[in-house]
């Protein structure tokens, strides 16, 4: 089916060329990082994880959101999602690919990464993260590809796919939970040491992922003859609404625990993020922006007139996506490391090279997604007798 991605309009090829040029520049930058070391980034002894790991953490959530289509459709026979489950699975593939790339790019000795397999260490959460991420990628490739392939031949998907589909549901929850467990089991990091971290990751995933899916469906409707259907989009928007409300509620719970107990170990990180600490507050405007975006998103999604109007829905989805991205992709990592365990405040700001490499990986994700969606849409348009 891959050859379907090779037939495209002029705009399609311009888009692909643009993505490839971004990727090309990023690859050169990464080769420089390989040669020089991770010192080209903005990371430091005190803030030893930065943009790359933050993007990985955010994208794990986006990847898990495929389950929000699979669960209603396969377990509860919600027919309206039938057309778009494969789109969700393809988002998962693109997102997990980016996750893995962000991890590789963050390693100090990436050519040794197979050590995680050779010297398997089950008491390390990174070991399990490697397993669940690669497993989830495998699941989505197998299920998505075979389901689409069956659709292109006009037959129902093969029966042996069913167990993989059922496994993918708890597996999606596991990729999130294990990623949260990377953070919430570390004794020295009060900002992350909270039982609600894993549930919060899940909630923000179920807000950000389906929001992205809605946006993609709307884009597909504009660019192709494929229409996901009003019912599917509206159900997705309801999922986003619940997801974002629960995410903000969990965050409010964390704020209460820190601010009411007033234990410095927990409070100081929130203070740094939202008000600055010892004169350093680079993230303050971003955190407040994130709050504004998420609350605006909630308000917009709660008002039926705004939610059902697809233009305003798109705006709300963008607001929610960016709001949750700032929350996880900027605030979470820096918040955990600042102040340091010795109560020093050394800030982290990503370097230009770091941002370019990050954009390159996002471009790779978009490339994967474009190719997969091109194939999917071509199959679906054919199946619907429209092309």
């Amino acid at each position, binding site marked *: 089916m891959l050859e379907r991605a090779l037939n495209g309009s002029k705009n399609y090829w311009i888009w692909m060329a643009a993505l490839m040029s971004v990727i090309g520049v990023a690859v050169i930058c990464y080769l420089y990082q390989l040669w020089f070391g991770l010192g080209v980034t903005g990371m430091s*002894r005190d803030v030893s994880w930065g943009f790359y790991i933050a993007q990985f953490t955010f994208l794990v959530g986006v990847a898990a959101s495929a389950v929000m289509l699979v669960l209603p459709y396969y377990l509860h026979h919600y027919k309206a999602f039938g057309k778009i489950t494969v789109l969700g699975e393809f988002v998962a593939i693109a997102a997990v690919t980016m996750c893995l790339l962000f991890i590789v790019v963050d390693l100090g000795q990436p050519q040794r990464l197979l050590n995680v397999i050779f010297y398997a260490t089950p008491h390390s959460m990174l070991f399990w993260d490697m397993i669940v991420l690669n497993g989830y990628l495998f699941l989505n490739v197998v299920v998505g590809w075979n389901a689409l392939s069956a659709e292109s031949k006009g037959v129902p998907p093969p029966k042996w796919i069913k167990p993989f589909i059922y496994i993918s549901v708890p597996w999606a929850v596991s990729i999130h939970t294990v990623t949260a467990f990377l953070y919430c089991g*570390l004794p020295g990091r009060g900002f992350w040491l909270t039982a609600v971290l894993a549930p919060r990751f899940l909630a923000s995933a179920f807000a950000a992922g389906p929001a992205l899916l809605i946006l993609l469906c709307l884009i597909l409707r504009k660019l192709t003859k494929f229409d996901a259907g009003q019912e599917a989009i509206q159900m997705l928007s309801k999922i986003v609404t619940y997801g974002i409300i629960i995410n903000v509620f969990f965050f409010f719970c964390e704020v209460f625990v820190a601010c009411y107990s007033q234990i410095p170990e927990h409070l100081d990180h929130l203070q740094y993020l939202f008000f600055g600490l010892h004169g350093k507050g680079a993230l303050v405007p971003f955190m407040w922006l994130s709050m504004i975006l998420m609350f605006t998103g909630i308000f917009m999604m709660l008002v039926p007139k705004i939610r059902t109007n697809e233009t305003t829905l798109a705006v709300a989805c963008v607001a929610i996506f960016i709001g949750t991205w700032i929350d996880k992709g900027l605030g979470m990592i820096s918040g955990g490391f600042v102040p340091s*365990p010795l109560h020093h405040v050394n800030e982290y700001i990503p370097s230009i090279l770091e941002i370019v490499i990050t954009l390159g990986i996002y471009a790779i994700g978009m490339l994967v997604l474009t190719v997969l969606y091109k194939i999917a849409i071509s199959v679906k348009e054919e199946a619907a007798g429209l092309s």
Partner: protein
Amino acid sequence: MMENSRRSFIKIAGITAAGIGLKPVTDVLASGGVQKKTSPIGDVSSGNNVLKAKRWAMVVDVKKMAHEDTVHACIEACHKLHNVPKMTNKSHEIKWIWEEEFKHAFPGQHHEHISKEIEHAPFLVLCNHCENPPCVRACPTKATFQREDGIVLMDFHRCIGCRFCMAACPYGSRSFNFRDPRPFIEEVEEKFPTRMKGVVEKCNFCAERLAVGKQPACVEVSNGALIFGDLDDENSEVRKVLDSNYVIRRKPGLGTGPQVYYKV
């Protein structure tokens, strides 16, 4: 499809060759030069003078340490011996042992009316070689591991540079090589390996000196301010100091079981 089979064969062969060629290129860029030398201190395990213990620990006598010269001497001895580089960019600094004020070494135990002596005393901080080390729990390759005698060591050749151990350490004891450290080593000490970029490092309780019957470098130059020994040995100096003095440890409530004690 068997049409153009020769063409498709050449295409696949070409891509394969490019793919095979990619690994050596990225390896060279990533590894930044490998130093291959025979071990300068010989086979460690068979030495006659090996200092053995069931549980190594250190006591820092803060009053005796309160001379800047002593603090400086301890740090220099360690960093010189272990080829710890002097990085020019503070973000990339590497330190195995260094000086902190009380409020930074013991955050949470500081208060407004702390004695002037404690407030201004230099506190030497280093890896605590915890009994229950969270860094060892976190490491996905066991590049960071705990020896039977309690010392938490690092295998610099296995480390993939993921820095999970740095996130896990509640004491900020670990440093990462953000770039090749070798140009920043003033005088290379041949008896200890230098590290490559992209790996984490920290104090190793001078395991290589213990193996030949010597005390850790910092202890040796500390003029009695640092006491080192086997907690399991009732007659060791560390046990005697702990038996007769009140000592504090960093972040004791976390359950890590740090083995560096501070006699204040």
